[in-house]
Structures are given as structure tokens and as C-alpha cells.
């Protein structure tokens, strides 16, 4: 019955029309969106493949031992170079900066969402969003002119140190952590806060036992995103960390990171040399680490409470 009806009318207003102009429009839109997606995917894959090819060449073409490269120090641009000091430097700056910025960032996020709501959201949040946009060279400049002398005169050492790097990068990633944490805390449904207050919990008890646990996955994401930014930061770190190619022995020692060595050494190497290839390998480590951070973020943010 139904089939019979269908075959009778091929020109019903509810049937898909053969109107060519609307079909064309639809196709054009589809093409535009599809192409954008394909370009982005190709770019990502191309960068990964290119960097992978360039980075791995060091170990196959120039016979540098991978184990040696990853675990020894001493960077002279030859086959015997080891990058451990820079890997260590990058991780040290990243974790120290996170250690410095995470409590401050989450604390100020709680302050502006739960404690001083009006003032926090009208004034503090816009200010922090502006901080995110300040170029890293500006942070570096402030680091060199303020923080480095401050450390040299009041704490000791040259001033160009891991400590300076930690502070400058920590301040840089602070707004990232703060604004993501603030959004996460704001997204917590007010009914569980009501529940806690209704049971006679104080504001701090509610923050500590209800708000922070409920927001924890997002807070972790905020910290890891901040760390990813710290790990990839080149310019500001290079300006304050001292760029010494050995392993730092204390917070006050100068050090170097993967990024700072790449930006420093790249202009002095000739294309196709071992030294040049070694730098590509450092770049490959950075890329792999950024993938690791993304995987961590995916894992952390998909993990729901209990």
C-alpha cells in the first residue's frame, strides 16, 4: 500500500528535490568544510612525518647512539653529543613552573568564582585573560631586567638560573591555569554546593570537599595544559636560564632546555651536518612530549569522578 503510493508520486513536496541550485549550494558548503578538515589533518601528519624523518636520521645516517643521546651530557655538536642536560632542563622548568603556578592559579580561580564573585568576574578575569595574550618575549624581558638581578643580588649565583626560568615560565602559564580552572569551577552545578551549605558546611569545607573534588579532572587538565605550554616555551626561557650546556646542580645554576638550545644553535649549524641533525632530534623529542601531554589531557578529562 505504502509502496504503491510512493511510486505514484515522484513530485511530492516532502520528497528530496532535484532542484540543482540548492544541491550545488549544499555541495559547495560541504566541499569548503571538508577541504579545511583535510588540510589540517595533512598538515599535522606532514609535520609529524617530516620531524620524525629528520629526527631519526641522526641515529641512522650519522650513527649516533640513541641511548647515548638520551642519557649522557656533553654537547659539542659531534656524534658523541648527549642531550640529557636539556631534557632534564626542560622537564625541570616545566615541573617547577607547574609547582609554582598550579596552587596560585587554582587558588585565584577559587577566589574569583567562589569568594569575591562580583569583583572577581568583573575585574580579575578580564585582567587574567589579557595576561594570556602578552607575548612571551615581554615576559622574558621582565625576567631579565627584574628577576635575574633580584636573584643575583638577594639569593646568589649569576641570576641566570633554573629558578629564574621557573618564575618566568610559572608566571606565563599562571593565567592559562587560572582561566581554565575558573571555567571548570563555574561549571559545577550549584545544587551540590547548595547541598553542602544546606548540611551546615562552611564555605571552606564546601570548597575543599565538594567543589575541588568535583572540578578535579578539569583542574588537572588546566595544569597539564599549562605544563604543555611551559615545555614548549622557548624565548622567555632562553632569555633568563643562562643556556649553560651542562647539568645544573642547584636551582641557582644556569641550565638549558631543548627549546633554548634549538633556537640558540640552529643559526650556527650548516644544513646536513651532524649538529644540525642533532637539533632536529631535539625537536622530535619536543613533538613526542607534546603528544604525550595531549594524551594525558585526554585521559584526565575523560576520567569522571568515581
Amino acid at each position, binding site marked *: 500500500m505504502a509502496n504503491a503510493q510512493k511510486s505514484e508520486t515522484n513530485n511530492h513536496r516532502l520528497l528530496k528535490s532535484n532542484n540543482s541550485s540548492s544541491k550545488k549550494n549544499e555541495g559547495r558548503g560541504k566541499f569548503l568544510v571538508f577541504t579545511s578538515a583535510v588540510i589540517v589533518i595533512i598538515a599535522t601528519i606532514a609535520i609529524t612525518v617530516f620531524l620524525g624523518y629528520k629526527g631519526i636520521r641522526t641515529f641512522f645516517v650519522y650513527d649516533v647512539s640513541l641511548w647515548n643521546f638520551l642519557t649522557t651530557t656533553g654537547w659539542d655538536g659531534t656524534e658523541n653529543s648527549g642531550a640529557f642536560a636539556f631534557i632534564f632542563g626542560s622537564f625541570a622548568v616545566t615541573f617547577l613552573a607547574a609547582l609554582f603556578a598550579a596552587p596560585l592559579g587554582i587558588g585565584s580561580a577559587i577566589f574569583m568564582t567562589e569568594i569575591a*564573585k*562580583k569583583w572577581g568576574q568583573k575585574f580579575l578575569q578580564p585582567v587574567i585573560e589579557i595576561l594570556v595574550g602578552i607575548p612571551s618575549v615581554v615576559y622574558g624581558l621582565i625576567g631579565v631586567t627584574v628577576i635575574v638581578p633580584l636573584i643575583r643580588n638577594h639569593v646568589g649565583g649569576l641570576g641566570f638560573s633554573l629558578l629564574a626560568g621557573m618564575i618566568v615560565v610559572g608566571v606565563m602559564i599562571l593565567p592559562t591555569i587560572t582561566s581554565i580552572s575558573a571555567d571548570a569551577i563555574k561549571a559545577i*552545578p550549584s*545544587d*551540590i*554546593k*547548595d*547541598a*553542602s*551549605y*544546606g*548540611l*551546615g*558546611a*562552611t564555605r571552606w*569545607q564546601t570548597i575543599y*570537599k*565538594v567543589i575541588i*573534588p*568535583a572540578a578535579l579532572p578539569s583542574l588537572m587538565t588546566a595544569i597539564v595544559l599549562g605544563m604543555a605550554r611551559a615545555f614548549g616555551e622557548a624565548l622567555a626561557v632562553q632569555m633568563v636560564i643562562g643556556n649553560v650546556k651542562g647539568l645544573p646542580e642547584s636551582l641557582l645554576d644556569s641550565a638549558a632546555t631543548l627549546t633554548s638550545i634549538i633556537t640558540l644553535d640552529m643559526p650556527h649549524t650548516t644544513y646536513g651536518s651532524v649538529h644540525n641533525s642533532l637539533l632536529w632530534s631535539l625537536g622530535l623529542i619536543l613533538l613526542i612530549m607534546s603528544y604525550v601531554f595531549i594524551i594525558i589531557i585526554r585521559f584526565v578529562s575523560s576520567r569522571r*569522578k*568515581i
Partner: protein
Amino acid sequence: MPKLDKRTINEQEYDKPNMKKRESKEIRTESSEFNTTETLMNLKNLSVYYADNQAVKNIDMPIEKNKVTAFIGPSGCGKSTLLRTINRMNDQISVARYEGEINYDGLNILRKEVDVVTLRKEIGMVFQEPNPFPKPIKQNITHALKFMKKPKNEIEEIVESSLKQAALWEETKDRLNNSALSLSGGQQQRLCIARALALKPKVLLLDEPTSALDPISSAKVEDLIMELKKHYTIAVVTHNMEQAARISDNTAFMYNGDLIEFGETSRLFTNPREKRTEDYISGKFS
């Protein structure tokens, strides 16, 4: 099951014109067990403002001990605001302010010096949407107890007794460490009641406790309220007039922030003094 059957019959009866009288007779017999009327709380000339908007207007009424007081009225009439004022939950809203008094145990609890944290432990609250914490069932109960630094063995006892009181123990005793979010809506709401009971409050404020629940779960919560009034004083806001008639001893009808009529539920539903009360309970407006 028998409870359920009774309820469905009752619901059918509501369609008949004689339903109010029958229902109120039942209530009168039930409330006769608690004949002694002792006023636990007295609202005096109480007004609540949100900025310049007066949500509750100069209300005078008592809340009697070990009775269920129902607040009915159309949406936006101020009944929830009034309820949230009783344990100062409106303090959370920065633009809210109060005028008048709520006298409770010889103290005006609207005074600035009142410690709202202690007050809320004594005057518990259950909200419209079941709002358990996203934690295990047991931790939902112990959440507030831990702040009070109760010893561990005492906490265990309270978990069991409050779940039993909320008629939830049999359903949850084998899975206390499962997430509270794995419970059904009705169970979650009873967990919220258990959570409030764990603090051994004197007064329980229920803000439309069954409006988000299905009929069977609602019936269970209603049975629970009837049971709890032996030990607690209960104030309940409800949209559902049949529910108010079923479970409450006294009813307050509010409209536009005014208290239009307050009285014994049986009297108010059968013989309302005010025209607007009559119109509302007979469904002429809502």
C-alpha cells in the same frame, strides 16, 4: 505493593467531587494522635527582598512542633524563598535581605550574629532536584559528619540509622561504596533526606521534594514524611495540592508573596475562608 494500590485508588478518587472530604477525614484521624500543639517557630512580619523586589511580604505564622506544615501556591509566589529563609540558605544570594523576625528557641534566627553553619545543622534542608554528591553512598552521609569530628564508630552507626530512617537501608546496605549517582531518582532523594537526618536536625525543610520523582518514588517519600513527623518538625513546599492534603497538618497558601490563608489542612481544604484559596485549591488558577 498494598501502599501502591491504595495510592492509585486515591488518585482515581481525586477526580470525583467528594474527594476532598474523604481525604481530609483520613488526615484528621491521623493527626489526632498528635493533638498537643506546641509552636516551635514563629514568623513575625517576615519580608524577604531580592534587591528591590519583595518576594515575601510581611508574613506572620507559626510552625508547630512535630507537625507537617505545607506551603502551597502558584509558581513564583515566594514559598520556596520563605522556606530557604528559615535556614538562611538565601544568604548565598548576595542581593537577598530580610526584614522581620523568625523566632526559634527564644532567638531571632535572622539576626546577623547567628552562626548559620550551626543553624543549618539544626534545620536541615532537602532540595527539589535530588542532589547527592558525586561520591559513594556512604560518603554522602558522612560528608557533614566528618566536619563535626565525630568518632569513627559513631559515624558507622549514624550511617546505618539515618539510612534506616530514610527507608533506604535495605536497598543500599550491600552497596554503600557504590556511587550515589547509580541510585534511582527516588532513592537519591531519600539519600538526600538520610543525609540531612544524619545531622540529627530538629526541623526538616523540604523544597518540593517529590516534584522530580515518578509516582511510586513520590509515594515512598510521602510515606517517609508521615513517618518522620513523629520525631521532626517538617515544613514542605509543594506544587501538588493533593500531596499537601495527604501529608500536612497545617497549610499555608501563598500568593504573590502574601500569605493569603493559614490553617489546619483539613479545614483549609474543605472550608477555605478566602476566595483566592478556594479558587486555587479548586483549580481555577494555578
